[in-house]
């Protein structure tokens, strides 16, 4: 008697769950998810759609839409000779910055995970590049490298490493290399902290077990620590790839005055199309290309590395 009412209820509930399509469920959920959805559409998808729409229009320099041109703006990009160099440089930029960032962060996180006097202080210090504005950090280096009054140039000359000050920010290769260095510097805090958080989730008994089994330091690191860091590293790398690809301020400050397109990445070229050439349509087309490149990189990365897979 007491069991009777329960049985029918479970049987009626089961099929509903299994079907799971009822629009009633959706209607019930809507009030709760609607604000988030509106936000996603208004802030994420709507601008992306406008960007794609703009990339197929002919927009005058004063911002007047002169109608559709299909994919002509993309053709303009293909016909632009330096574009291949720009794409290659974007690749070098992303790979170099992310690689150095991750390698240095791994070491830094290991250090910060050890107990030593003043660790709190060092941990705070690592955050500074993060807390400072990227433009400020870059400008400090930029002025330091100035051939007329930069202290870095001055120091190099006084140390007899250089005979005369060198225009580091005036030549494509050196400006680009310094930019990579700055980008690594400002990417370190986030990456280090992500990895540090990962390190702290590794239970101590795993190390004890390794010690009992006679694993050396090197072996312990590569066989135990690194695999455990998989998901932390995956997040760090993925976010860094996207961030670094989309990074404008460092290159804009460091390479902005260099003529031609020998130090440009996709981002700075988009910026030049907008700021110098006032070609919003072509800039939109290049933005779409950049957007697709990031999507493809992320897709390949997720597919190959399977970051979400459990260890």
């Amino acid at each position: 008697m007491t069991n009777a009412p329960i049985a029918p209820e479970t049987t009626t509930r089961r099929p509903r769950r299994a079907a799971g399509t009822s629009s009633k469920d959706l209607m019930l959920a809507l009030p709760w998810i609607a604000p988030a959805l509106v936000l996603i559409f208004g802030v994420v998808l709507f601008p992306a759609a406008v960007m794609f729409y703009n990339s197929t229009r002919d927009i005058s320099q004063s911002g007047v839409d002169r109608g559709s041109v299909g994919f002509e703006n993309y053709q303009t990009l293909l016909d632009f000779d330096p574009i291949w160099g720009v794409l290659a440089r974007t690749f070098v930029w992303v790979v170099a910055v992310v690689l150095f960032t991750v390698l240095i962060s791994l070491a830094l996180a290991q250090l910060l995970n050890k107990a030593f006097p003043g660790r709190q202080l060092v941990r705070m210090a690592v955050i500074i590049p993060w807390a400072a504005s990227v433009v400020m950090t870059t400008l400090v280096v930029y002025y330091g490298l100035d051939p007329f009054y930069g202290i870095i140039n001055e120091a190099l000359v006084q140390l007899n490493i250089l005979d005369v000050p060198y225009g580091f920010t005036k030549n494509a290769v050196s400006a680009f290399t310094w930019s990579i260095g700055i980008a690594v510097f400002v990417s370190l805090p986030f990456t280090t902290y992500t990895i540090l958080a990962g390190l702290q989730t590794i239970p101590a008994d795993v190390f004890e077990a390794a010690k009992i089994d006679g694993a050396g330091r090197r072996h312990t690191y590569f066989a135990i620590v690194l695999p455990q860091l998989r998901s932390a590293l995956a997040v760090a790398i993925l976010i860094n790839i996207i961030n670094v690809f989309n990074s404008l301020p460092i290159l804009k400050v460091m390479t902005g005055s260099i003529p031609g397109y020998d130090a440009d990445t996709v981002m700075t070229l988009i910026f030049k199309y907008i700021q110098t050439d006032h070609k919003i349509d072509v800039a939109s087309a290049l933005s779409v290309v950049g957007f697709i490149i990031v999507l493809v990189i992320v897709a390949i990365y997720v597919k190959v590395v399977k970051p979400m897979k459990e260890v």
Partner: protein
Amino acid sequence: MKKSIRIGAVVATAAIASMALSSCGFSDSSSGGGGSKSIDLLVPSYSDGTQGLWEDVIAGFEKEYPDITVNLEVQSWDNLNDVVTTKVQGDKAPDIMNGGPFAGFAADDLLYPVSDVTSDDTRADFQKSFVDSASVGDTQYGLPLIASSRTLFVNNDLLAQAGVEAPKTWDDLLAAGKAINALGLPSTYGYGLPLGSEEAQAESAIWFMGGGGTFGDADAITIDTPENLEAATFIQKMVDEGATQPDAGATDRTPLIDVFIQGNIGMIEGLPPTVGQIEEKNPDLNYSMVPIPTKTGDAFTLGVADHLMAFKNDGDKKDSITKFFDYFYQPDVYVNWVTTEGFLPTTISGGEQLADDPKLKVFLDALPDAQFYPSTNPNWSATDAAFKSLVGQLAQGKDPQEVLTEIQAKSDEG
């Protein structure tokens, strides 16, 4: 399959919701302000004082016309074009803008002809050469706001140390630059050649036009010409023979003028505000202002004018805009504005007021010989952009002919 239908439904709902939201956003701003009249004024910042100067003008104007309010928006020069383009795209163009090139806006039929928004007296007061450079065909679209011209600033001490006179021709300039570089002073160079992107078109114009070339006119942009090639080749010669600072192709104008002010550059093309900057930053600098050296030694200067322009928004603002322009161009208001910013006036009455200012004399004297950018050509913006991003390659050893061909091609593309 079923899951995707559900997602589809969610997507559609959200899309409709966000559309509804955004359309609300679009509609409410344009219908605002029915009763009192207001005009939006978008201006770039020439100096730290620009905002205050405009605020004074507006305060005076609003006192005289209490029924009109002026909304001031100040932007940096770097952002000005992006801001106005975005505003035009969103149908929210300012009523009055202070800017450089206006031909693009005129070509898109966004501007009032000046005759619609000024009184005859105001219009008649502009100097003729400025009216010409502010007109497309016979229609004047820009109200010349400020004029500026270039002249050569020389560091007397460095020239004396190198034993050279202020140069009059290109050859003099080359020799003087080499002589100062030969002194071997640390971080001190002969001719400051700013071909970096900031204002490469100005330095190029000084050389091209000073060698008898031109950038073209309202109908055709002509960069790839024998005269310009000769000038471009000479620029490269200046660099190759070591008469300039290093990395000229990537050196921007403003920082290089600062180096001149510090006393480490022998000669550089400067503007009227440079005089004020020297007074402020290094009043001890022993310098002179001399005419720009040209190929033959003939007088020449590059004139630049910035303009005010009025956008066609709501028809009923024409009256308010006219009142504002007429108020602003009264000699008392206008001359104070221009001289505080350190530029030259474009009105006849303004020129008369300043005729005996010793600092501005060299610039005012040069104005009759001034040549202007072909800024009424619809392709000028593209040409300007091409110079900014490409001409610096001359200093990096690229073949001058190739550089000119590239600039011409980018200019023709529009």
